[in-house]
């Protein structure tokens, strides 16, 4: 659906109107069928509108004037003409509105599908670097404003054709009358254009001030407890008052400008009508025109006044849509995840517990996760605990093992096969992950454990038991079929972690990677889980803060400053003062 070329791909620096027109033509070409129907409907409507003015003039000349002069009135014919024109116009309006809406909705759907694909396909690091709120705004409000201009676009084409019809119609009535009118029309269009340009900056200022008000409100409400305990209510509300005042001033500025311009321009059509009446009246008096002709001319102008404003709406919408589209494009240019590239010569992973090896791995441009020269052998079937100070690289090492993070240098192998030779499907079936922040998806406990892998229900239940979640079948209202809510909010943190752990243990994985995955589970149950893990015929690598887990692991790797400093069992590592300090600190901080 990416037919509409992204704006960023073009040399920028064009005027907002120029960029906007390019955007519209891109959308129109991508969905040319509904757009064409909408435009034709619009032209039909335009013809009908001009026609109705003529119908009105005809009714005056052929029904009313003869009637008042005592001649034969052709009122039924007049009614037939009026109604006939109305039917044509209605068909035009309905076609235009429906298909313009369809065009906009189709364009938006295309953008939303592209965005959804990017969100899922972009590398994890790119996803994490983006604010979730902004991406939600991208897929909702931004796609909406990006295609907003497609609502008035076909109408604008209709209005332009309406102008042509009107001018031709006027020329047919009387040439001087036409010239009196045509002189005014560019003025109306120019006025709308002028409005769009003049309002651009103040509107941006107002939007920014508005965002500041929302941000301040959110901050103050989120911080209410602290504000209250500090007695800062007055100070915070004073700060808020200043932001509101700035917002108010910007709104008055925009409002006054917009109102002044709109209202002043609203008199242009009326003044033009007076001009037409003055020019026309003399020509009626001298017998060149019928009164009906004059009524027609004025009615034409009357019906034109509103549609011409549409050109103004269109021009005002252009820059808004350009801005919306630019925000969307920032996400659309995200690359695919290179980690998912298919290997040239795929080799199959062995069955059973999986060994793995990190050799001299270097990762990370960002300073928080810098790892260099990290080597870690993972023996098939062992339980290996990764410990070390925060920011030392434990989680990074785990993410490299999970193939969630590309390495800048060094080697990664699974069961002696280089990572690059293993297909995505093979790896994902054999290596699983559970993290401290256990994210579940809308659905039942069981569907979260199965997670699209079509496991047997016995396998799912067994995984739940292994993850210390047997009691969830009794505690939760619908047992293992309880709905967990969006992101799992309907279950507690500890329950969420156990379900996520079951997800990682299900499907007979060869290597299970746990990043503090039981931090919210109570100590008694954690003991039970650790015991289950020890029994499993699988390799387990876990980052942990619990001394019991370190003591129970086959081996412990101490990770400091991006390197593995020492590997050995808990008892032998206790000889290392750094490790001893760490253990002492963990004991002190032991959390219920």
């Amino acid at each position, binding site marked *: 659906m990416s037919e509409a070329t992204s704006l960023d791909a073009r040399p920028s620096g064009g005027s907002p109107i120029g960029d906007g027109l390019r955007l519209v033509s891109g959308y129109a070409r991508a969905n040319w069928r509904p757009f064409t129907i909408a435009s034709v409907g619009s032209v039909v409507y335009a013809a009908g509108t001009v026609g109705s003015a003529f119908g009105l003039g005809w009714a005056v000349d052929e029904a009313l004037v003869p009637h008042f002069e005592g001649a034969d009135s052709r009122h039924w014919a007049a009614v037939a003409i009026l109604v006939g024109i109305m039917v044509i116009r209605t068909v035009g309006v309905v076609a235009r509105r429906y298909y313009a809406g369809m065009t906009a909705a189709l364009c938006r759907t295309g953008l939303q599908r592209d965005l959804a694909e990017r*969100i899922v396909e972009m590398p*994890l690091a790119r996803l994490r670097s983006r604010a979730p709120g902004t991406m939600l705004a991208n*897929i909702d409000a931004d796609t909406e404003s990006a295609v907003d201009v497609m609502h008035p676009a076909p109408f604008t084409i209709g209005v332009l054709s309406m102008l042509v019809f009107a001018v031709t119609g006027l020329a047919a009535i009387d040439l001087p009358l036409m010239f009196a009118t045509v002189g005014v029309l560019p003025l109306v269009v120019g006025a709308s254009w002028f409005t769009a340009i003049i309002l651009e900056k103040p509107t941006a200022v107002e939007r920014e001030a508005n965002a500041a008000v929302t941000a301040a409100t959110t901050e103050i*409400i989120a911080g209410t407890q602290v504000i209250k305990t*500090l007695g800062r209510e007055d100070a915070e509300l004073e700060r808020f008052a200043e932001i509101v005042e700035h917002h108010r001033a910007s709104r008055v500025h925009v409002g006054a400008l917009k109102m002044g311009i709109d209202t002043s321009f609203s008199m242009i059509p009326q003044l033009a009508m007076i001009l037409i009446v003055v020019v026309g009246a003399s020509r009626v008096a*001298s017998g060149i025109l019928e009164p009906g002709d004059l009524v027609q001319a004025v009615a034409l102008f*009357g019906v034109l006044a509103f549609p011409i404003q549409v050109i103004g709406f269109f021009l005002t919408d252009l820059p808004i849509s350009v801005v919306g589209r630019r925000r969307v494009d920032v996400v659309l240019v995200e690359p695919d995840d290179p980690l998912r590239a298919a290997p040239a010569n795929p080799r199959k992973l062995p069955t059973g517990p999986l060994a793995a090896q990190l050799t001299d791995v270097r990762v990370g441009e960002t300073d928080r996760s810098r790892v260099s020269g990290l080597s870690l052998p993972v023996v098939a079937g062992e339980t290996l605990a990764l410990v070390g100070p925060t920011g030392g690289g434990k989680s990074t090492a785990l993410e490299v093992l999970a193939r*969630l993070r590309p390495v800048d240098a060094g080697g990664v192998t699974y069961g002696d096969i280089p990572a690059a030779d293993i297909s995505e499907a093979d790896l994902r079936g054999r290596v699983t992950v559970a993290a401290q922040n256990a994210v579940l998806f809308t659905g039942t406990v069981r569907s979260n454990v199965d997670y699209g892998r079509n496991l047997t229900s016995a396998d799912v239940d067994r995984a739940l038991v292994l993850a210390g979640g047997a009691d969830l079948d009794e505690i939760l209202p619908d047992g293992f079929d309880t709905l967990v809510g969006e992101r799992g909010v309907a279950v507690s943190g500890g329950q969420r972690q156990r379900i996520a752990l079951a997800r990682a243990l299900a499907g007979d994985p060869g290597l299970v990677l746990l990043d503090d995955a039981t931090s919210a589970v109570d*100590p008694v149950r954690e003991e039970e889980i650790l015991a289950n893990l020890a029994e499993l015929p699988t390799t387990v690598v876990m980052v942990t803060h619990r001394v019991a887990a370190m003591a129970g692991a086959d081996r412990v790797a101490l990770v400091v400053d991006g390197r593995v400093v020492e590997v050995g069992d808990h008892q032998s590592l206790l000889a290392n003062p750094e490790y001893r300090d760490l253990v002492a600190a963990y004991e002190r901080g032991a959390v219920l």
Partner: protein
Amino acid sequence: MSEIPNTSPFGEGSEVTAFAILRAGLDLNPEFRPVIRLLLATGVLLSLGRIAIPVLFQRLIDGDLLEAAGYSRAELLTLAVITTAVVIGVVLLSVLSQFVLIRTSEQALARLRKVVLRRAVDLSLAEHATERQGDLVSRTTGDIEALTRFVDWGAYSWLVNTTIALTATLAMFFYSWQLALVATISLVLMVPILMKLQRARQQRVAVVRNRTADLLSDTNEAIAGGEVIRAFGQHEAATRQLNTDVDSLYSSHLWANRVMAWLFTISDIFGTIAIAAVVLAAVWLGADGPTLGATVAILFLVQIVLTPIAELTEVIDDTTMALAGWQRTIELATRPQAIPPAELPLPIHDGPLEIDVDHVSFAYNDHAVLHDVSLHVPAGTAVAVVGATGSGKTTLARLLCRLADPDEGTVALGEVDVRRLSESDRRHAVRMVPQDGFLFAMPVRENIRMGRDDATDAEIVTAIADLGLTGWVGSLPQGLDTEIGPGGEGLSVGERQLVAVVRAALADPGVLILDEATSSLDPATELAMTAALDRLKQGRTTVTVAHRLSTAERADLVVVFADGHIVETGSHDELVTSGGEYAQLHEAWSRGVAI
């Protein structure tokens, strides 16, 4: 509609009419009253401007100016000049009245924003529970936003367009009551159809809104669960789910669009019917009817009535939303103050204070959390409060600093009921270090100074040194000048709590309330925190909502909560040997630590 139970100015249960909302809103914001008058004035002015042209026509035709015999250039020009003057004059006056209108209404809205946020902050902390914060934020931003849009557009449209339609209709009756009646009846016939379409539209727009919510919630999951999707290679399934949402949103849009395509056509259809009816009626009335000029004027007036009706159908949605938003805003703004200030404050002494909790019960919105709790803590005691999540320990801590008042019973510090303390005395007497020390977007130094506004830089440095935190501050990128992002970004949870600890030290309270972090901190922060708290606790009464075994072990007194009751009190050793709840808890705790 409202999730927050309260004493609504609209009473309970009954459907609230638009007029009731308007009346309550005007009582709250009397500034809006002149706004309505200004809108009416503007409407009358603009309608005068619009009917100028039909009147001009009537004069031309009936003054025989369009006949060769009656034509007079001077008279024509006079009429044109008068009409031009009316049009321009009306525009100038309406610009003036609209300018005043914008200023007044923006002032009123700005004040409303401030009043509402003040009220939101003043609410009892029961309303500030995390799950309600979204609701509060939407009331203080979204609802006022809807109202603002309405004042910008909708209100103007309603009053001005109604006035224009009425004035034009009156003008019709002035020319010919028979023709005017015919035109009005033809136009009134469309009202039931419009209403029906409008209802259908609202239903369909609601479907669009629900599908949008589905898409957003699934997108939110795809973002939050980005790691899980990638780790399990479930890309295709995730994309498929989102595409299904996008497509069903699309079909709901088309469905809604079908109604909208017709909705705005109706006034056009009935306008033509009205014009045809007027032509027929004029012919049938014959000599008893109006003049030709008057008939032509009425034809133009019908068109003038139509435009505002078409515009009104466009603002009905905005109006409904604005009224609902306004209603919620009014309900919030008129809520009685949750924590009324002490009327006759009593003095309180400096230094450590004793705590007396006497038969206290408390409920969050009918959900009882504390049942008849009593507790005496001698001055200078270190208390650890333990118990499962939801057992009432955090609520007790909140009542101690009067973030809420108990439903029954009293809370006294230094033998004074907290409700009888002046605000400044209370803040000096008791200070809370919350679990997540919320920080403001400003440097660390200024965040610390919030503990006591008049603290000098030197005092801040001393306080940090006294708590043994100089090393930690030195480890921050720019020390005390380190800028903090919105919501405390850039510091870990533990570090944010350290800032809160320094704040509390500056305030030097007699009673310190500590809500310990539930998650583990990294070892360096944990060490710094333990040392700082040990020093901060010196010479005060402290109540710690404890999540750590070590905290409970070192406390003078351990208070065990279960289901809103205090089930055990005593020293750590006493409680461990007594074999009760605490002993069991302690056993589980120790197993996690013991090697």
